[in-house]
C-alpha cells in the first residue's frame, strides 16, 4: 500500500493535498484496493458545499456502493470529469489521475484533525492485523 509523504489522511481512507487555501481530495490506495474494480463514481458538483466528515461522493464497484466523506469543509471548485468515463483511474492511480475534486478550504484549522502519513501508515497496519 502506498502512502505518499505529502498528503493528509482520514480514518475513512480519504486523502487531501493542501495548496494554500485549496485542497485536492481523493481516496487512498488502501481504499481502492479494498473496494476492488470501481465502475462508477458519483462526484460532487462544482459550487456545492461539502462538510468535513459528511458525504461528498459515492464510489460504486460491481456489487457495492460506498460513501466518500469530505476530509475538509469547503466549496467544490472543480470535479475530475475524467472519472465519469474512466472510473478505473482510481484503481490505477489513486493519488494522481484518480483525484476526485478540488475544494476551497473553509477552515484551515480542520487540518489538525487529519492524520499525517506516519500516523495513517500505522493506522492501516493496525487494520490489517
Amino acid at each position, binding site marked *: 500500500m502506498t502512502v505518499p509523504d505529502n498528503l493528509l489522511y482520514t480514518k475513512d481512507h480519504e486523502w487531501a493535498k493542501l495548496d494554500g487555501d485549496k485542497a485536492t481530495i481523493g481516496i487512498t490506495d488502501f481504499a481502492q484496493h479494498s473496494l476492488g474494480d470501481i465502475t462508477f463514481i458519483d462526484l460532487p458538483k462544482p459550487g456545492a458545499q461539502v462538510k468535513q466528515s459528511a458525504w461528498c461522493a459515492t464510489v460504486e464497484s460491481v*456489487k*457495492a456502493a460506498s460513501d466518500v466523506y469530505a476530509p475538509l469543509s469547503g466549496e467544490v471548485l472543480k470535479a475530475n470529469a475524467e472519472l465519469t468515463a474512466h472510473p478505473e483511474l482510481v484503481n490505477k492511480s489513486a493519488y494522481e489521475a484518480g483525484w476526485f475534486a478540488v475544494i476551497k478550504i473553509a477552515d484551515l484549522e480542520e487540518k489538525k484533525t487529519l492524520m499525517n502519513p506516519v500516523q495513517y501508515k500505522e493506522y492501516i497496519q493496525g487494520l490489517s492485523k
Partner: protein
Amino acid sequence: MNYIPHTELEKKQMLKTIGVESVDDLFKHIPAALRPKSFNIPEGKSEFEVMEHLKILSRKNATNLTDFVGGGFYDHYIPAAVDALAGRAEFYTAYTPYQPECSQGWLQAIYEYQTVICELTGLDVSNASLYDGGTALYEAAMMAVRLSGRKKIIVDSGVSLIYRTMLYAYTSNLSIEFVETPVAHGQACREDIYKHLDEKTAAVIVQNPNFFGAVDDFSDIAERVHKCGALAIASVYPVSLGMLKSPGEMGIDIATGEGQSLGIPLSFGGPYLGFIAVKKEHMRQLPGRIAGATADKDNKRGFVLTLQAREQHIRRERATSNICSNEALCALRALIYTCLLGKSGFYELARLNYQKAEFAKATLDKVTGVKVKRSAPTFNEFTVCLPKNADEVVCSLIDKGFACGFPLGRFYKGLDNYLLVAVTEKRTKEEIVQFANSLEAALCS
C-alpha cells in the same frame, strides 16, 4: 413447484425436535390476553361447495357487454399463444429469482422485454418493469427530483386522474410542489406550462394520448423544459406507439405507461404492468432491476442483473427507490404479445384501432344531439358531448348490452354530459352501428 403440506407425522417430528408439545406451545410467550380467541374462519368446504360458491359470485360480473370503455385500460384481443407460452410451469410458478444468474431463461426474457420497451418508446434503457402505469409515473417524477435537485413538478391535467392521485399520495410526505395546468382545446396548454416553468422546476409531466384521447407532439415542450434544466416526462399508451411519434423522437427524457394493453387481460385491480424507459444519461437514477447481456468466461452470451449498486440491497436508504420487485409474468406476456405481432403486425394493430375509432366518430356524429369533439386528432379514443348526463346514459345502455364509455364528469368538474369512448381492433362495424342506434334510442327516451 408443487404445494405439499406437512403431514401430521412431520409436524409431530418437528415439534419433538425443537422440544415442544404442540403448535399452541409455539405461541406461549405471547400473553394469553393478546392471543386471538378465535380466527373466526368458517368450517372448511368441499371442492364442490367452493366451486358452487365461486360460480354464484362470478354471475355478479357483467361479462357479455360490448366494450367501449377505455380510460387507460383497453379491451384488446389476446392471442391464445400468449396464455399457452406464459402459462408454462417454468415461467408461471417460478418465484422471484434470488440468485438471478441461475435463472438465465428469466433474465433473457426480461432483457428482451426491455428491448421491446426501448424500441417502442425510442429511448435507450428500460428496467425489468414496475407495478403499473401509476407507480411508473411516480418513479419517473422522483427520478427527475433526484437528477435536477429541484422539487417543483408541473402536471398537465390531461394526465389520467388515477395517475395524478397516485403521484400525490406517494409523494405526500416529500414536500414536493405540484402545479396542475389546464387542458386547452383538448391538449396540453403550452402557455400555462411555460408560465410556471422556472429554475425550481424538476419536471413537466404530460400524457399521450391524453385522458380525453387527444394526440399531441410534445417536442416543443421538451425543448423548452430542457432549456430550463428540467426533465420532460410522458406517460404513453404503448399500442398507440405503433403509429404515433415516440417519446424518444420528441426529446422526452423519461417515458412511462401502463402495459396492460400488451397481452394482459382486463381485471379489477390487476395485476397490470408498469413500464419505464429513459435516456442513457439518466440510467443511474432508473429504479428497479435491469437485466443486461454479457459474455461468460468462454465468451458465450449470458445475462446478468446489472447496475445493481442503485438498488436497496446494496445502497440501503440511499437507493434510487424502495421498489424491489417487478411484474415479471406480465412483462413476459407483453414480450410474447409484441413478438407474436412483430413490427408490421404492431403497426397494423395501431392502424386498425385508429381507423375503427375514426369510423365510430363518423357514425356517432350522425346521432341526433351527439357531438364528437374534434379540436385535436385522436388515436383510438375520443370525447363526445351528449344532450344529457353521460352517467345516466351509460347506465341505461348496460341493459342494451353496451359498456358504452367512461363518463368524464366522474374525473372532471363541469363535464357531466361528456362521454369518453374507446374503440379497439375487437369492435366490429356492426357493433359500432348497433351502439350508435342504441345510443340514439336511449337519448330519445
